[in-house]
């Protein structure tokens, strides 16, 4: 056994391996840099699609669109996930980092691959957008860059498993891993499945770009999406883990029932990969039976998992508050929550926008027939900005507000800005997503430089409402980008030039330190009695979390309504069969 160097966190009392800490920091920093690149691209994109501004010329619009997709959906989220994997497999279970040199080699591969990809895109050698559908052709080094990045990420997913196994063998933890690590394990397994699909598609495509083999366009679309969509499911599993983590850190959220929450993670692992079939619903290569079976996720078992987490996460928060006697009535646990703690507000915004907007629209537009009125319109990016940005990225930002003091041992810089940042980011994104969704229902295409068709052979005039919606989209996007820039500024200032954390005295508020750290949500000695009382049969079906039950009821109502409205709209178009 190598001599791992540990420090003990003075706040949480957890042991932190110096090597793991270094890897967490390095990956998190590169994630933030990628976010910055992606956000700069985002500003240029919304200012181009706002037809009145129309900033970029056509070639640069498509180029920057590719940069935005790769920087955000791949580099930002996967680098951050690597940090989460290191964190969950060492800090959370008191274990050491196994083979740290391999970890650094993997980091090197990922950074090298990412730089290669960025260089190809910015140099105009890879104008194929994020999806790079064959036979659109990029420079071979573009594909090679992605392969290097994926190999690096694959190594980290294996190191995660090694940490769990070695930690167990060395007695770092007894029994089961915590739920947050369990969720990270689900993310890890999904990541392995995803990255293997990445290899299965990018290695042949690399060879194809060298003229060495043939790649069928439809097969490419099928296998590529097993990378492209599944990589977003790594995010989702990581995000749900972070929900449980932030709930615990900010207001002492408890786990309602380990069996239910863990089973839901198992459902993700088993069924979520099939979600990639959503992209092929109106493709010629697959029959309806294939589409129905796969997109129903084998009867929507992954949707079920999300609906379960959508209940257990807020219910755990509600119960945590009630156990500590915070708030009365149906929603007192919410009204008396620490809304000024950016970790908490990020958590709630992430849960609400992910669930109400991203989840509901995702299931509706991922329905075989409804996809006919959605495919490749702006409704699609409308959906996934609600999930990946307001959901995943928001949760990652919230986690960062706690990682800065706990891992980097710094205070959060620009504290007032940090307290507002989640509202700016999620608020702007919500406006943008709604505008995209409505514009998309007019048939406005995604990935399109000029919907005024000023140089096209025929005229096409969208409803004037579309111009207004695209302007609103751009403004929402600019607000969200401002939130992203604020986050980057806060993170960079805190990590590199931040004030050292210093002594934390429980119960005394500090500028730059989230409330969950200065006021740890501790339970009263009679917590078991309170718990039993809240679970008493006399409370009836409302049980220990009546507020959450009311909220999920509203959620289900919105879901049912939106879903059937879409069927109704579909029924108005031509007969197609």
């Amino acid at each position, binding site marked *: 056994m190598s001599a791992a160097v540990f420090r003990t966190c003075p706040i949480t009392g957890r042991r932190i391996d110096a090597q793991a800490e270094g890897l967490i920091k390095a990956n998190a920093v590169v994630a933030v840099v990628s976010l910055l690149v992606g956000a700069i691209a985002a500003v240029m994109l919304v200012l181009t699609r706002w037809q009145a501004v129309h900033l970029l010329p*056509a*070639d640069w619009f*498509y180029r920057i669109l590719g940069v935005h997709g790769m920087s955000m959906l791949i580099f930002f989220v996967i680098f951050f996930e690597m940090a989460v994997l290191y964190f969950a497999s060492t800090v959370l279970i008191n274990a050491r980092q196994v083979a740290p040199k391999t970890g650094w080699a993997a980091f090197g591969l990922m950074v090298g691959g990412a730089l290669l990809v960025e260089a190809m895109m910015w140099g105009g050698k890879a*104008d194929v957008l994020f999806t790079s*559908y064959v*036979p*659109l052709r990029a420079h071979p080094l573009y594909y090679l860059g992605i392969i290097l990045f994926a190999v690096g990420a694959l190594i980290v997913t294996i190191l995660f498993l090694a940490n769990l196994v070695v930690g167990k063998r060395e007695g770092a933890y007894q*029994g089961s891993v*915590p*739920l*947050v690590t369990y969720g990270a394990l689900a993310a890890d397994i999904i990541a392995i499945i995803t990255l293997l699909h990445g290899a299965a598609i990018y290695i042949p495509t690399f060879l194809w770009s060298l003229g060495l083999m043939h790649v069928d*366009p439809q097969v490419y679309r099928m296998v590529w999406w097993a990378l492209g969509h599944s990589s977003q499911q790594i995010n989702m599993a990581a995000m749900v883990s972070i929900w449980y983590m932030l*709930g*615990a850190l900010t207001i002492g959220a*408890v*786990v309602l029932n380990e*069996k*239910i929450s863990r089973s839901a993670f198992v459902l993700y692992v088993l069924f979520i990969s099939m979600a990639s079939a959503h992209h092929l619903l*109106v493709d*010629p290569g697959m*029959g*309806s039976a294939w589409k129905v079976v796969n*997109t129903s996720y084998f009867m*929507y*078992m992954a949707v*079920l998992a999300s*609906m*379960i987490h959508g209940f257990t996460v807020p219910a*755990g928060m509600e119960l945590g508050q009630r156990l500590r006697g915070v708030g009365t009535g149906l929603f007192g646990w919410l009204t008396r929550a620490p809304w000024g703690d950016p970790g908490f507000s990020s958590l709630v915004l992430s849960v609400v926008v992910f669930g109400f907007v991203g989840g509901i629209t995702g*299931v509706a537009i991922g329905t*075989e*027939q409804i*996809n*006919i009125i959605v*495919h*490749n*319109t702006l409704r699609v990016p409308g959906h996934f900005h609600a999930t990946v940005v307001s959901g995943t990225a928001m949760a990652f930002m919230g986690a960062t507000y706690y990682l800065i003091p706990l891992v980097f041992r710094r205070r959060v810089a620009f504290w007032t800005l940090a307290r507002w940042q989640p509202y700016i980011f999620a608020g702007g994104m919500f406006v943008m997503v709604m505008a995209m969704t409505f514009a998309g229902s007019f*048939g406005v295409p995604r*990935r*399109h*430089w000029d*919907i005024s*068709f000023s140089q*096209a*052979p*025929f*005229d096409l005039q969208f409803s004037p409402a579309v111009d207004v919606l695209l302007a609103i989209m751009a403004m929402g996007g600019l607000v969200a980008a401002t939130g992203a820039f604020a986050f980057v500024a806060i993170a960079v200032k805190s990590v590199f030039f931040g004030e050292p954390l210093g002594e934390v005295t429980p119960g005394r508020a500090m500028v730059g330190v989230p409330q969950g750290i200065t006021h740890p949500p501790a339970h009263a*000695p009679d917590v078991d009695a309170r*718990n039993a009382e809240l679970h008493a049969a006399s409370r009836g079906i409302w*049980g*220990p979390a009546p507020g959450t*039950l009311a909220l*999920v009821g509203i959620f289900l109502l919105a*879901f*049912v309504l939106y879903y059937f409205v879409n*069927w109704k709209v579909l029924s108005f*178009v*031509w*007969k*197609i069969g």
Partner: protein
Amino acid sequence: MHTDTHTGLDAPRGIWWKPAHKTEKMWVGIAFGWCMVLFAMMPLWHLRGGQNPSGIRRKVDPQAFYARTQEFIKEYQVGEDRGMPIVAPPPGAEVYLTAMAFQWTPILQLQKGVQYTIHLSALDVNHGFSLYPLNVNFQVVPGYDYGLRMTPTEAGDFRIICNEFCGIGHHLMLGRVIVVDAPQVGLAGGAR
């Protein structure tokens, strides 16, 4: 202090496979039931609904498909708009529409209330068939023939937007479909 409650950051003690509270079980049950509804709607719409992406699907050589489109144009051409042939196939005909960077060939003139089998395919790269203002969308993949039985339910002058990125001229790629009320012979008017 050991208590019955713990957070997601703490390892659960002992066996965590314990019965859930009835509220939680009820929600899982409701969610499961709703997922079954989501599942059932798709097969049900195949049986009772009017819009399904089933179609006739087969692999095809892109050049052969383009040649078939040219034959189709020669057989039923009724006019021309900006150099692009306007083709009016008889009711029930097999219709061929080729997508290529950066145009849709040919312009179709269809009759309202009549079913056509519209074959979509691409000559070069992926394209996206998006019928405006109807908002009906299909993926067009080179090497694959997607034969969709469509029945126009309203007359009008429609556009086909390409909504899959196909290259630098992607936003120029706009096609045209005319739907007329009654059977009509001869030239259709030019686009507005």
